[in-house]
């Protein structure tokens, strides 16, 4: 998958007041900048996500700062107290001006 693509997983339906898990995987090499190419001896330049923000109905739910310490194609899981139906939006950017967003819907009954 292309760099910057992502899968966001939320429960299709949640009960009001339930604490639900929201999980995401973003395609990104997460190169820390501390690694050398074994063939050439050259340092591999840093190329990683720096920020991931998760919104619910445009209110900030969680803000995550990250560096090259997360694994390639980082996985993130958080929770949310489901009070109403709405849209989860994740916005993420890297250290080379890449910026993307993805959305997923949650139905609260």
């Amino acid at each position: 998958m292309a760099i910057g693509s992502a899968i966001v997983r939320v429960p299709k339906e949640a009960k009001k007041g339930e604490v639900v898990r929201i999980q995401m995987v973003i395609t990104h090499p997460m190169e820390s900048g501390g690694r050398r190419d074994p063939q050439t001896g050259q340092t591999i330049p840093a190329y990683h996500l720096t920020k991931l923000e998760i919104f619910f109905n445009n209110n900030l739910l969680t803000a995550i700062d990250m560096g090259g310490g997360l694994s390639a194609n980082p996985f993130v899981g958080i929770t949310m107290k489901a009070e109403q139906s709405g849209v989860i939006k994740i916005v993420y950017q890297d250290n080379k001006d890449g910026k993307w967003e993805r959305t997923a819907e949650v139905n609260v009954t």
Partner: protein
Amino acid sequence: MDRRKFLLLSAVAVASFTVAPHLSFGASRIEEDIQKRLGVSLSQIKESPEVKLQAPTIAESGANVPISVESDIPIEKVDSLWIFVDNNGTPWVTTVKFTPMNGKVYFATRIKMRESSNVRAILKLKDGSYVMATKEVKVTAGGCG
């Protein structure tokens, strides 16, 4: 484990043993990093069973170590979660800023580990104090190259 792997592993073990002592000279990398980012010294942060850090005891690959952090401390009292790996080139891994909408303290991810090390999950509470959980993870193949 075949012979080649065993020899490689023992070479790594000997190398890390001989390299390690110079780290204990002065403040270690983890102490400096925590001081710089949190503004408190590591020795002032107390371990608490209220922070539950899950990580494997032995990680097959340091490139991909699953960890999760949970706590029963009410989310309204918690500001942020900080994750560090003592022996990585850059110990700081991630900072997670919670909001009351999260409902509870929970965070899961996968981290890189260059070698066997302590993993630390530090919760910054809104009253300005810190609580920590530490777990040692043995890595059989490093993940930072």
